[in-house]
């Protein structure tokens, strides 16, 4: 055992790291940036928007005031008949309106409609809204028993958090594994010298990148299918939409991940640096692309960042399809598919364009 030899190894590592600015950045800057973002997101004031249709009548106004005094709720007053559209547009997570009292019955009946796609919001509404309405009805007096009926726009009481997270986690996992595999693999093409040989052959840059897209894309698409089938048949997540569309979104996303892997691998000198792209690509998408925090709930600046991330569109499309049952006729789903395809094309073009320089 020689302290001197051990010290020599330590010194060598310190010298190497000192010259690798990217690694130093990863060690000192990235964790702080990610922690700051995470802390900010966790502390975002979280309130769930609840709409109430009110024409100004005393029972409706009392109910609205009771909801306003309940913690964690943000009350949106709506004209009678306007609530359903607002609920479908995603502006509110739940809607309270007065239901007609059946003939012969006494008292006031309120109906709570829960949007239902986010089980945590549903749970909060179900725990606070009926209690607040009951309080308001008790204030009104009249002796009649308060009544609140509950219905779901999407999903239902059987939807658990996994049903909400699965449409976002399934594409996220597929994306990350395919991205990592492709970026390291393409880098190997360069470090083992074969890229130099290929660049001196008639193979064009676009052909090379397309070849990667085809080869890795095949495995990526099969992987997507396996993950999806596992989620549906083994984890038994609830879904309502067409699995074919879900698979299509997944397939486009993973091909996009192949192209992004090829593109970014060119900016790494070795496998070590290629792996470092993981946190830079992973953390922003995991935090901002709507996996845990809905994009619509983010502050404007972060929402703009989210809109530049491909996973945002995959998550949105899959939740649209799997929870809300949207199909290809839905403009939201079509737009998401289009944006994902455009991202895949953009990464492909950029990868091909930047290749020659990197081979040199």
């Amino acid at each position, binding site marked *: 055992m020689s302290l001197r030899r051990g010290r020599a190894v330590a010194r060598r590592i310190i010298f190497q790291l000192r010259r690798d600015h990217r690694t130093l950045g990863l060690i000192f800057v990235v964790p702080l940036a990610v922690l700051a973002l995470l802390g900010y997101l966790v502390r975002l004031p979280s309130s769930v928007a609840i709409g109430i249709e009110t024409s100004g009548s005393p029972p409706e106004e009392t109910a609205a005031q009771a909801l306003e005094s309940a913690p964690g709720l943000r009350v949106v007053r709506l004209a009678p008949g306007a609530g359903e559209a607002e609920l479908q547009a995603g502006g509110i997570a739940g809607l309270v309106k007065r239901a007609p009292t059946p003939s012969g019955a006494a008292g006031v009946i309120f109906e709570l409609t829960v949007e239902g796609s986010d089980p945590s919001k549903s749970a909060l509404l179900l725990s606070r809204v009926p209690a607040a309405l009951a309080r308001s009805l008790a204030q009104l007096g009249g002796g009649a028993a308060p009544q609140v009926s509950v219905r779901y726009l999407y999903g239902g009481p059987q939807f658990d958090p996994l049903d909400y997270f699965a449409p976002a986690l399934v594409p996220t996992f597929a994306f990350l594994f395919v991205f990592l595999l492709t970026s390291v693999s393409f880098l190997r093409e360069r470090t*083992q*010298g*074969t890229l*130099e*040989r*290929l*660049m*001196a*052959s*008639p*193979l064009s840059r676009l052909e090379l990148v397309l070849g990667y897209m085809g080869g890795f894309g095949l495995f990526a698409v099969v992987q997507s299918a396996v993950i999806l089938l596992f989620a549906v048949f083994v984890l038994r997540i609830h879904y309502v939409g067409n699995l074919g569309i879900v698979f299509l979104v997944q397939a486009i996303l993973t091909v996009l991940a192949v192209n992004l892997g090829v593109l970014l691998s060119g900016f790494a000198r070795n496998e070590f640096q290629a792996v470092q792209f993981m946190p830079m690509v992973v953390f922003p998408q995991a935090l901002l692309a709507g996996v845990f925090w809905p994009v619509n709930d983010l502050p404007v600046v972060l929402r703009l960042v989210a809109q530049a991330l491909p996973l945002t569109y995959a998550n949105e499309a899959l939740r649209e399809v799997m929870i809300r049952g949207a199909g290809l006729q839905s403009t939201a789903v079509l737009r998401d598919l289009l944006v994902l395809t455009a991202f895949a094309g953009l990464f492909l073009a950029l990868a091909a364009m930047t290749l020659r320089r990197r*081979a*040199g």
Partner: protein
Amino acid sequence: MEDEAYAVETDGLAKRFGLVVALDRLTLRVPAGITYGLLGPNGSGKTTLIRLLAGLLRADAGSARVLGHDVTLSAEKTRHVVGYMTQADALYGDLTVQENVAFFADIFGVSDGRRVREVLHIVDLADRADSLVHTLSGGMRRRLSLATALVHRPRLLLLDEPTVGVDPQLRAAFWRHFHELNREGVTIIVSSHVMDEAERCDRLGLLREGRLLAEGTADELRRRAGRVTLEEAFLAYAEASNVAP
């Protein structure tokens, strides 16, 4: 193109990497059908010249013609007829010997499957066709690397230090094969810093700091320098260039 007297012609070729001058207004003519040796110490510009001729780098100034085509303007044309063997083996370790050659055959549009077996015979690797490349010895990998550069029947073969790490017996076999290719009309440009290999080349270009110090056959170079060995001749040319840069 068949009638070109020179396989390679460069005129005032210059290339810098930052402050380092890799090629300094290099003018060179390589007659077709011969083996031309680029000789010089490490950093003399041999690899830069080969990479320029292979279309991997762009010259800062000057021009280069390969088999009658300008390498910058007609890169697509020259790539079909140039074979390039890099200093590194540049092989896929997780593919078999045959799969590696077949891949490069596909890339160059060689559809005849017999050609793959043929080049494996040429480099004496036919019996290892199904071996994974990472199981091969260093010498076998060099031979396979040559096979992948030959599979499309190039008319100009650029070999960057092809015999580094190769034992004397295999080295002799390599040179026998290079001369066979010459007889078939293939021009070979081979870089080396090993002087005894230079004796096997039909003509030599002595490079130093990106400049052509002298050019000719080994005998001519020795005679002109008045030295017995090529190494002594090279040193004499280098010294003369220091005196009169």
